[in-house]
């Protein structure tokens, strides 16, 4: 039975049309994968269902009745529940409050019932696999992946009929993704209709019933998943075949670029030592909360070193500025809070770290600036009305490309990439892998932190694994397997 139906949906921002008349239908007990390149319009379409945007044209039917969704509340009342692509959490509030935001459990007298709220929270957290997190923990103390799972728990806290998941797995590792996928199957059994956005084809193949493809704001087509192969979907998406996602590796050089000696960060990281060579891609894996992000920040001088040291070509590094001067670049996994200045333009975000380099006594050189910007906007195929547009208005994946561009053009000696392809479509991923490959071939050292196992195995020369803030294993790519990484990650042996 048709649960939700969108017909001829159009949407314009500032008189620019970004959705050109989209149809979409979800049935009860069905998982629909909504696919498309970065900037295709997937999130915008979903935000219309969530009551964030009003469509410029088109109709929406809920259980065959036409409805207007003019506010988030209206959407909730129609029993539509959404996990947005960007987090919407209050960092200074507890996990429990975030989950029950706008619908606190109260007693008959209107007084908040903290006890019941915390109990319900624990149940929900268990359901998404993070039962160990206390309901009273502040969100600011949770890692990105943990936050993603909290968002999912939040969506589950509604008794909904339609569940929209906008790239819920982008920040999750293999294990958590698997858990989430089986949870989705459970929900399907319960009769929910699910719209699932992802850039990972394996996930589509494993849970989705039907795939709907968009491109440039237009509807391209749809197909039952059982009639499709992975390659066919990719072709529908990109319009061509993508063979050999991961380029062949070039052997690293002998010279050590970065050396980490018994690095210790109070309460977070313990006894970390490793080296990275010129032209080497060092992969770092680990479960969620294992300290990968903390490590990346420590290397960049963002966390105070309690003891031990980080050396770049023999020189000690302990502040972000020192790190940048020594040739370290860090692509963070938190693009909204750490990676971008959302109100500034694409151009400026790309240029921020290099202003010092491209100025003459503090005066900026206009030509150099526009050259750099042009190069990366086209090189990374950033989809934006113009380089002057605010980054805020870009699609999630395109924002991620801006973060990448800003560091790539710095010509670093070592590039730390923390989840660099988070939310990036398969075509662009292909391009980014090519760039990483070229950089490494040019002798640039790369630290690749990723929760995507194929990426880690496909790109790295060597992989180290973290567990509870320590290095728990190291292996050459020739001996690395998914199972082995998992074993180290869980602190096995």
């Amino acid at each position, binding site marked *: 039975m048709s649960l939700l139906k969108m017909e001829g949906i159009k949407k314009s921002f500032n008189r620019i049309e970004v959705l050109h008349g989209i149809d979409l239908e979800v049935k009860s007990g069905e998982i629909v994968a909504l696919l498309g390149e970065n900037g295709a319009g997937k999130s915008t379409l979903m935000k219309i269902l969530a009551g964030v945007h009003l469509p410029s044209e088109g109709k929406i039917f809920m259980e065959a009745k036409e409805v207007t969704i003019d506010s988030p509340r209206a959407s909730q009342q129609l029993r539509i529940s959404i996990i947005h692509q960007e987090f919407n959490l209050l960092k*200074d509030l507890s996990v429990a409050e975030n989950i029950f935001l*706008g619908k606190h459990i109260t007693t008959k007298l209107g007084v*908040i019932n903290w006890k019941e709220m915390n109990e319900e929270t624990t149940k929900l957290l268990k359901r998404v696999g993070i039962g160990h997190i206390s309901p009273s923990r502040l969100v600011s103390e949770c890692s990105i992946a943990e936050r993603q799972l909290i968002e999912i728990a939040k969506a589950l806290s509604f008794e909904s009929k339609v569940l929209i998941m906008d790239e819920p797995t982008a920040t999750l590792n293999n294990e958590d993704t698997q858990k989430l996928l089986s949870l989705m199957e459970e929900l399907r059994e319960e009769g929910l209709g699910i719209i699932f956005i992802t850039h990972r084809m394996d996930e589509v193949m494993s849970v989705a019933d039907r795939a709907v493809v968009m491109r440039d704001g237009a509807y391209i087509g749809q197909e039952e998943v059982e009639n499709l192969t992975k390659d066919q979907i990719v072709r529908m998406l990109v319009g061509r075949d993508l063979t050999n996602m991961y380029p062949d590796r070039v052997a690293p050089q002998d010279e050590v670029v970065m050396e980490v000696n018994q690095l210790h960060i109070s309460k977070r990281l313990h006894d970390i030592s490793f080296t990275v060579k010129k032209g080497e891609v060092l992969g770092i894996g680990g479960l969620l909360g294992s300290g990968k992000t903390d490590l990346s920040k420590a290397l960049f001088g963002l966390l105070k070193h309690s003891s031990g040291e980080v050396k770049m070509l023999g020189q000690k590094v302990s502040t972000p500025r020192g790190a940048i001067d020594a040739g370290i670049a860090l692509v963070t996994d938190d693009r909204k809070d750490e990676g971008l200045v959302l109100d500034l333009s694409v151009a400026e975000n790309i240029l921020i770290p290099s202003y010092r380099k491209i100025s003459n006594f503090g005066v900026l050189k206009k030509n150099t600036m526009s050259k750099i910007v042009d190069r990366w906007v086209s090189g990374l195929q950033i989809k934006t009305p113009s380089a002057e547009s605010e980054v805020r208005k870009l699609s999630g994946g395109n924002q991620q490309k801006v973060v990448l561009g800003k560091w790539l053009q710095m010509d670093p000696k070592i590039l730390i990439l923390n989840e660099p392809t988070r939310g990036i479509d398969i075509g662009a991923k292909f391009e980014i892998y090519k760039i990483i490959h070229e950089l490494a071939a040019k002798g640039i050292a790369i630290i690749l932190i990723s929760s995507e196992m194929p990426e880690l195995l496909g790109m790295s020369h060597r992989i180290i694994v973290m567990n509870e803030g320590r290095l728990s294993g190291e292996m050459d790519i020739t001996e690395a397997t998914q199972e082995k990484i998992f074993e180290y990650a869980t602190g096995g042996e």
Partner: protein
Amino acid sequence: MTNTNDNNNWLRVALLLNKYRVFIIFLVLLLIASFISDAFFTVNNLFNVLRQVSIVAIIAVGMTIVILTAGIDLSVGSVLALTGAIAAGAITAGLPFPIAIIICLLAGLLIGSINGLIVSKGKVPAFIATLAVMVIARGLTLVYTQGNPIVISDMGYRFLGSGRILGIPFPVILMLAIFAIMFWVLKHTTFGRNIYAVGGNEEAARLAGINVDRVKIGVYALTGFFASISALIYTSRLMSAQPNAGSMMELDAIAAVIIGGTRLTGGKGGVTGTLIGALIMGVLDNILNLANVSPFYQDIAKGLVILAAVLIDSKLAKLQKQ
């Protein structure tokens, strides 16, 4: 994994310290004050300080919740003046003073709601909206009073500002009651929690289905209401409404809120800190007078102490993080 509990305990101590950092600074100030003057640590003088503080402190409660939503209300001082004039005018017109009180409070609520409407529905930045209302309310006060104070002669009215219950000055009771109620509201009601949500991340709050406009109107309305309560104390203490009453009071109230640890960008803080912030400033005024510091130097001393307090606070915060 074994020492998770230990860590939790440490965490708790740290959080507690974090919450009561201002309190420690306040205690140190009290200690110093009692060294400086014998007259300081007497029941009489302490009640004196509390009573003096009450007018600003009650306004600062409102300011706290407004700031928690990432707003600000510059109109409080003028609203105090205008609602005070309304109360005095009503009494002078012969209305029984309980009715005058109700009119005054309703006026405060109304002006506050107007602030809230302009900010929420009008989408005007709070700073400029309430600045405009501040100027307008001051003008209305001048027009209404024709620049003259309005004298209140009904002696029953004097109780509000100068009366005592069980030896405790009535304004002090009022102040403590308001703080207690708002403390509870912020912790245990949906309205209270929504205030934090709106201030922490308005977009997220909206997406969660919270009626953001309603929350905003609510906090400004309450702040206007509290300003009119302060107006009652003020007019009762002076038994007259002053056309220039409460000027610059917004700065004192905001200072109390920030010294008390509430973040100006919203979403973090609470009324306990504000009470202590207001007390710090009250004690400072009191002790400078008791010690007969020359008025020219009082400003300097006051500024330096506030600066020291916030600097120490920020150092303490840093220490705790490590």
